[in-house]
């Protein structure tokens, strides 16, 4: 505390200066806040709420519990050794018979994720239960469909009895719950997601790497050539950037397929034999090549804008002081271009990891990425819980990478221009 301060400074009308200042500042603050309100709402509605909704969906299993509340209550008493008791069959019977058509319909979709076949079993049962007037129900249900006597179907209910579930996350990494809610591995011939995750990261890292290797020299030329040439070069970079993604993807198909331009040229010039044509399309190689070309501008542009700011005098000075060109580049130019490299790599990697349309078209047998599975479940199976879990994992991984990156390089070292 400063000893000379005796009390708060007052304005001429006796109000402390601090309060008075705050008062006059308040107006400005409100005005500033009002200016950002539209953006705030925009971000809230288009970004935060949907992401929150997605995160909720990935653990939410409450709907099914509102359709079969009594059955699930009764289910918890079942010992899972033998077929359930008449009592459980009876509760299930009435909840199916008396439930509304749509709620049962939605439930069938959910239950089918737990065990394939629930969908048609419930639908058929809903239709046929109308004819059953009184008990005992167990035998009559089994007469309607013998799957009611299949323990697997009953066991599958076990994974749904809680209103929140980690089941979708487990599915997203090839695990699942068994009837007792213990975590077990997915059947071997269905273990697709871990493989796809690894592939997605592998492809994204490779694409990022190739973009950097190819983009760095171009950006250097762009930044150092006289304006006349660099403008021309810039157009070469931007033209494909402005061309439709689909057009570029299809053009690559024409180039790379077995009877395509590239292979034909090699065969015509007798570099390879006709029967040894390279398989460059409809596999992972194709995905990497095409994605690299499509994402290249996202590496070149930030690199270029950073390199443009590096004064040529630095290099001249280094050379003047006796450094070899390579040494000067390594010691002077490269460190200065790091913010551009980071920005480019981040951009390309983040875009690549969620890529969907290119792998779908050129990926063929092993070039499909996690985005393709998200699209599949979003559109075809309507398993939005699993989509949400896959999306949330993607988001989580990116957040972790961002955090690591921030620790290692520092986010202030990123520069887009």
């Amino acid at each position, binding site marked *: 505390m400063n000893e000379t301060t005796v009390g708060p400074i007052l304005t001429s009308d006796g109000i402390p200066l601090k309060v008075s200042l705050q008062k006059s500042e308040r107006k400005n603050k409100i005005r500033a806040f009002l200016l950002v309100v539209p953006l705030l709402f925009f971000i809230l509605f288009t970004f935060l709420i949907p992401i929150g*909704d997605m995160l909720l969906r990935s653990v939410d299993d409450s709907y099914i519990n509102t359709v079969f509340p009594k059955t699930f209550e009764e289910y918890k008493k079942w010992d899972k050794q033998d077929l359930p008791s008449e009592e459980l069959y009876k509760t299930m019977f009435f909840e199916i018979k008396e439930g509304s058509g749509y709620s049962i319909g939605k439930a069938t979709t959910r239950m089918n994720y737990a065990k394939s076949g629930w969908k048609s079993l419930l639908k058929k049962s809903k239709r046929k239960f109308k004819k059953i007037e009184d008990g005992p129900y167990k035998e009559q249900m089994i007469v309607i469909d013998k799957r009611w006597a299949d323990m697997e179907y009953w066991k599958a209910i076990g994974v749904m009895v809680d209103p929140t579930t980690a089941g979708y996350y487990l599915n997203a990494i090839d695990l699942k719950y068994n009837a007792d809610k213990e975590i077990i591995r997915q059947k071997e011939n269905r273990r697709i997601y871990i493989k796809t995750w690894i592939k997605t990261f592998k492809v994204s890292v490779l694409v990022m790497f190739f973009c950097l290797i190819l983009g760095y020299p171009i950006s250097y030329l762009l930044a150092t050539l006289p304006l006349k040439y660099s403008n021309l070069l810039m157009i070469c970079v931007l033209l494909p950037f402005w061309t439709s993604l689909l057009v570029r993807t299809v053009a690559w198909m024409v180039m790379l397929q077995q009877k395509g331009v590239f292979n034909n040229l090699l065969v015509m010039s007798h570099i390879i034999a006709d029967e040894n044509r390279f398989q460059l399309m409809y596999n992972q190689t194709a995905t990497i090549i095409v994605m690299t070309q499509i994402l290249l501008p996202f590496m070149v542009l930030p690199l270029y804008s950073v390199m443009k700011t590096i004064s040529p005098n630095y290099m001249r000075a280094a050379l003047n002081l006796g450094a070899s060109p390579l040494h000067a580049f390594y010691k002077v130019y490269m460190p200065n271009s790091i913010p551009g490299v980071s920005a480019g790599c981040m951009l390309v990697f983040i875009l690549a990891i969620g890529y969907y349309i290119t792998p779908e078209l050129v990926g063929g047998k092993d070039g499909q990425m996690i985005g393709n599975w998200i699209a599949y479940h*979003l559109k075809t199976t309507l398993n939005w819980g699993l989509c949400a879990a896959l999306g949330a994992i993607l988001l989580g991984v990116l957040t972790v990478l961002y955090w690591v990156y921030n620790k290692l390089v520092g986010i202030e070292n990123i520069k887009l221009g």
Partner: protein
Amino acid sequence: MFKLLKASFLGLIAMAFTATSYADITFVSWGGAYTASQQKAYVDTYVSLNPDAKITVENYNGGLGEIKAQVEAGNVTWDVVDVLPDQAITGCDEGLFEKVDQSSFINDMVVPPVSDCVVPQIFWAYTVFYDKAAFPGKKPKKMKDFFDTKKFPGKRGIHTWAQANIEMALVGDGVKAKDVYEVMSTPEGIDRAFAKLDTIKNDVVFWSAGSKPLELVSSGEVVMAIAYNGRIGAAILSEGKDFEYIWDGTVLEQEYLVAIKGGKNTAEALDFMAHASTATALAEQAKYIPYGPMRKSSIDIIKKGEPWFIKYGGDIDIMPHMPTHPKVLKKAVIGNPVWWADNGAEVNERFGVWKGN
């Protein structure tokens, strides 16, 4: 995830600016030659009967994702959608579609409708075909020839999802077309199908867009491919390609129209659907594309009217290109959407593992 974001975003925007005109029907279908044929056979004829009606045709890529998003966001912008049968089942069960009055056609259909929400459109088929020039000597005739790379060497084009690939593998392995789904309902049956697929694994080129198999066969990249029969027909009829179908073990799929629940023009939409499912309208469509109408009486109209297919410079008999030709039906697998609604996710995951290995 992005679709969902987009859908909720668009939903909000649209709610804020509800300025759409109320008499328009938005009809959503798959695009290409198929939608062009629907435009001529259904939309144009409907508009000539009801001059006030306005029908906007949009394209989509299948699936229920967009529809579910629209219904959940309470902002339905599509009225009539052309859907696959397993989606017709799921969407109707989940209350995404309106129930329709089926009394006018229910007794006239080749197979009963898959749900209470649909009006009939066409049968289309996954069919194997080849370029006659690729086999100067003995030509493949049966599904087992498709899986026999010793007798008929060369690559095969197949699609990237499991539907129809499983059925065809079983027919290729000697299962009778009518028993296919019985075999598929046992775990051993699925194993058997994958084992058969293994035999051509190293000779497979995968495609995902419908135009691709035609290009693959035309360019010689593959010697045989599975394709949508309408695309093969169009290549033969309109482009004069020398392609040949292998009808043995072809897999017939159904196609329906549905009305989205909560749409603003439901009455108009249902009226349009009634028009687009009359026997004459269905027959009319076959003038422009070789897909088989689902109503028996439409097939009669076509048979009586041959040459039916409209082509520049002279008309052509269409029945030999129809997947519902009686001769084809004898050896075809009629796709079972209920089986796929049950097992689609599981089998497609397994198919994904198989592809990648």
